[in-house]
């Protein structure tokens, strides 16, 4: 039995855990405000909020695209649809901001925007305009051109300026952001009989963000093996200079990790290039690794950190190997049927080491890269002491550049050695032409991103002129 609270109603259902939350909400509960636009997490019309109780019994809300989320992952949570944000006879502050600014035209994407922006009001994040925009990074509108929605987001931020951080929900209720039933939800969630339903199922599913895009029809009629609540697979811990991340950790959990943001000062800038906030709230690193896309953003990220992964089998035995040795050929990797990636482990950047992530796609955000790349370079006295480069979209697997990385070890940090390394890199990649670009383009782009790493990491030392000839 899956149990959760949907808006202000307790749900107990025997429906398949692999059914999408979207279908359950729309067709089982007839809450038709949640719309179907694409069924692959790319439009945000089905955005819902998920409220989770933490160990202090505080509730935290985040947004998801319900079209690629298994119903089973709602267990024990508070799920909020647009109807659940409505006040009795008037618009909420978010809804009024949209109305005042003409931010709704055909109305089909509108509930998604309302839910996302309400999620922004409910979240602990800073009430800045840029943060508000991040929350709608996964919402596509075809009518407005977004300028009216931006104006609405500004208005929401203005209204939130004096919000009370100590008693946020009381303040939000009083200021018409949310209906008052929200006040009782933490208590109700606590009382909810949440002994875990059977976790057995036909397929291991974490966030579902890839599986439900690839093969939803194979999952929706079944129970699936859900792991996103498995604490053994969660969390980020730092011991000395080693960071260990549970494979079930989401991208957003990395985004929000205070300490890691000091080790990776541009972490949020980099992660903003990775899908949308809704997807980042669901997508796990382990899922990204076993999807084995040659272009997986987080795979490239962790490859350049020279990460190890620990794999757990059904007998409880563990083994560890380097992520760069995990992939064998296209979509083939070193994982047995009964195995699961448990953790990722890597050495944190130091003062002498520099990390950068680059990604170019047709659309900068919420798009799959044409080429992506990460670099981790240690420099001592002008000499490269250690270098790790990874590129996506240029090979049949996410490509760790063994030779290029090796080549740069011990080289001086000069345009000459970088240009030579670039030649080595070109021998290590073999991009194909596809819908994300021609092979010529990807080669050129790989070169440019290779240079971009050095320009980003050593801005006082390198400019574009150091690497290219003409003009």
């Amino acid at each position, binding site marked *: 039995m899956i149990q959760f609270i949907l808006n202000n109603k307790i749900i107990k259902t025997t429906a398949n855990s692999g059914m999408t939350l979207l279908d359950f909400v729309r067709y089982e509960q007839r809450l038709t405000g949640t719309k*179907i636009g694409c069924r692959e997490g790319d439009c945000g019309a089905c955005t819902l909020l998920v409220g989770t109780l933490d160990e202090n019994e505080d509730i935290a809300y985040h947004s998801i695209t319900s079209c690629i989320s298994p119903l089973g992952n709602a267990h024990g949570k508070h799920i909020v649809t647009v109807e659940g944000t409505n006040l009795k006879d008037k618009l909420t502050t978010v809804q009024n901001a949209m109305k*005042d600014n003409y931010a709704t035209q*055909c109305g089909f994407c509108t509930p998604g925007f309302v839910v996302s922006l309400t999620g922004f009001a409910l979240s602990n994040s800073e009430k800045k305009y840029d943060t508000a925009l991040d929350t709608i*990074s996964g919402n596509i509108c075809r009518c407005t*051109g977004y300028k009216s929605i*931006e104006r609405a987001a500004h208005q929401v931020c203005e209204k939130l300026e004096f919000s009370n951080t100590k008693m946020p929900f009381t303040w939000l209720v009083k200021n018409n952001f949310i209906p008052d039933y929200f006040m009782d939800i933490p208590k109700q969630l606590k009382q909810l009989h949440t002994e875990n339903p059977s976790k057995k199922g036909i397929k291991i599913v974490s966030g579902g963000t890839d599986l439900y895009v690839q093969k939803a029809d194979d999952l929706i009629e079944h129970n699936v093996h859900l792991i996103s609540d498995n604490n053994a697979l969660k969390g980020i811990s730092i011991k000395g200079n080693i960071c260990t991340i549970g494979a079930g950790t989401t991208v957003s959990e990395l985004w929000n990790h205070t300490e890691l943001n000091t080790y990776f000062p541009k972490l949020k800038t980099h992660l903003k290039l990775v899908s949308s906030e809704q997807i980042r709230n669901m997508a796990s690193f382990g899922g990204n690794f076993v999807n084995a896309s040659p272009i997986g953003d987080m795979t490239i990220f962790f490859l350049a950190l020279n990460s190890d992964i620990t794999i757990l089998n059904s007998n409880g035995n563990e083994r560890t190997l380097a992520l760069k040795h995990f992939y064998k050929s296209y979509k083939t990797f070193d994982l047995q049927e009964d195995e699961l990636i448990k953790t990722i482990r890597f050495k944190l950047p130091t003062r002498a080491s520099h990390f950068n992530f680059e990604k170019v796609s047709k659309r900068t955000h919420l798009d799959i890269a044409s080429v992506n790349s990460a670099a981790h370079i240690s420099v001592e006295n002008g000499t490269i002491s250690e270098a790790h480069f990874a590129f996506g979209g240029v090979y049949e697997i996410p490509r760790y550049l063994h030779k290029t990385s090796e080549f740069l070890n011990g080289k001086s940090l000069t345009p000459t050695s970088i240009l030579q390394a670039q030649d080595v890199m070109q021998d290590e990649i073999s991009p194909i032409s596809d819908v994300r670009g021609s092979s010529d383009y990807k080669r*050129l*782009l790989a070169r440019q991103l290779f240079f971009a790493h050095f320009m980003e990491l050593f801005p006082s030392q390198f400019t574009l002129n150091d690497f290219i000839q003409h003009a």
Partner: protein
Amino acid sequence: MHKNKSHSDLDIKKSQVKASLKQSVKNIDSYTHLRGESLYVDDVNVREGTFLAVVFDAPIAHGKIKSIDYSEAEALAGVERIFTYKDIPGDNQIGGIIQDEPLFAEQDIHFWGQPIALIVAKTELIARQARRLIKIDFEELPVITMAKDAKDKGSFINAARSFNLGNTDRAFANCDYIFEGETFSNGQEQLYIEAQGSYAEPLENGTIKIISSTQGPTAVQKTAASVLGLPMHKIEVDVTRLGGGFGGKEDQATPWAVMAALATYHLKQSVKLVLNRHDDLRMTGKRHPYESTYKIGLSKDLKILAYEVEFLQNSGAAADLSPAIAERTLFHATNSYFVKNVKSTVYSCKTHLPPNTAFRGFGGPQGMFVIESAIAKAASEIGVSARKIQEANLLQENDEFSYGQIAKQVEAQNSWNAAKTIFNLKELERDVEDFNKNNKAFKKGLALMPITFGISFTNTQMNHARALVHIYQDGSVGVSTAAVEMGQGVNTKMLQIAAQVFSIDKTKVKIETTNTTRVANTSPSAASSTADLNGKATLKACELLLERLKEVASEDLKVSKETITLKEEYVYVDAKKTALTWTALIFKAMAKRVALTENAHYATPEIHFDKTKEKGHPFAYHVYGTAIVITTVDCTRGTYEFDTVKVVHDYGKSMSEGIDLGQAEGGLAQGIGWMTMEEIAYNDKGKLLSNALSTYKVPDVFSVPKNVEILPLETESSELAILKSKAVGEPPLMYGIGAYFAIQNAIKAFNPNYKLKFHAPMTPEKVLMSLYES
């Protein structure tokens, strides 16, 4: 001095816009939209026993079907029935302009995604599973995906059309400069967020009611009737609203509605057919790709003396709306410029892509892209800014269009001058120049884009509409028109008209669904004309009712009718308020047995067009404007951002400033999308590669220009615009064309070796390759 003045002008203008937005009427659907309570096709409460349907479509682009085995699919538990062309009681034909498109393929397959059968089952999943069990055997035939190849093989939809003015041969002999070139503009997916869908249910006596997400209820009704072999009165089509249309549901909402109706006809049960996104992308047509060649001749003082252009329209596998779209390409081939000698020809080339169809602009943008390319090329070769050529040729009062219409109330020069001065173009240009001098890794580009867009269906006979207005006995009002609400705010405008004529509160007026039993024989909601046509009809109906009410009041108050006005729900005599309220007046009218219903018909006057001569006066009026587009290109990565788009736009006298600004901003974003990131890709076999939202990208909140300023141009406007508020749906899309040229100018600033190319969209791939070409 001058700088300060224009800046303060700009500030005043901006604060005026802000103030008018505050007062302007809000979209009447806001409340239900924002609460998730608005109803779209898939939200309708279906009847018990409703079946779900999925379309089985061709897995090749061209060939002959040898055999199809449905047996396994039919045997799947939950499958009710599979319908093919054999089940069609009437004509297997859905072509609107030309009868060349079957509802279901019989023996021949003409495009990848062409419907072959409809699988009807208890659930959509079962229908999808059944689809995978259908076995089809076919013989593949050669596939044409490009218009040029079709032309070479003589594969056309219809005869070519030409609009000519003056004599280009003679004019070229007198030109100081002549340039030739070719251009390509790709297709564009409409990407309404609500996919195509319909729900059909049987009523008594063989009548079928269809709820459809269509811009053209009459097209659905007429086609369903002819496919089912029924009279039109047996088909009722009802449309509450669309989750976006953009032209994609003008003609191509029809097949899905007809299929649902066909299944309902046989099963006597209601059937719902809502396409999933992949099916929608694969099976439906898009904006037409165009391959074009031009020859442009100029004098030393940069006057365009002659322009020849040949458009190859990639029409896809059937006519759909292609002939009408091709025609509009010719109407807009010279955009905002007066060219004395024009020879323009368009070929609608038949290929094996899904039949391409309407998309905001309707062929106009494709025509404009070519002349803007020709101007850019000429400017580059001559060594002047394209702006100089644009400026030297702007359309003036009484200039003749190539199609014979004499330009009146022209605002091309006015909008251009206004944009230049209000936004201080000189300073903007200088800023770009300075930036480019001081930066290597980033370059800026600036381009201007004037637009002139004709308003009316170019097929004169479609320019009509009707409104049915009821005043109920309690004083509330219901308005039915042919207008379909799809986000453009037409219902709000209709409501404003009724509320204004009767001078009653807006809450007293309700805009009804668009329904073929209330308003029949309608034209689709398209061509930016919906508010004009239906608004004029509504205005007429309300005014007729008002006259009758004034008579009632004059009898009741024993004063002459001329002294009576209605104001804020009271009757006034000689501008003095009486005790007689709107509600009481209606009550009295009822008692006097006065008709409180009016049905008015409006047909646009003045317009005509003779296709045998290709001359006439096809447009009620034109909409004008000028945009300045500035972009920054990241020369390391080949990506770009738009710093600003500044527009002076001719709204006429806008009746709904907030709604019209929304149309302008939304159109602009779509136009930029068409020119930049939106890339339709088919492989050589005619298979759509950009077949999902993961591979077809439309603008998101981060990719639209950082700053958009759209200011109204003060104009006298046209009497043929509803309350002088000009049509606004399509024209602003074409400002987006400036995005292409702005990026190109930035590329030129980085790479002196770059050779101009006119091949849209300008994707990051093309930008990077261009930055580094030698």
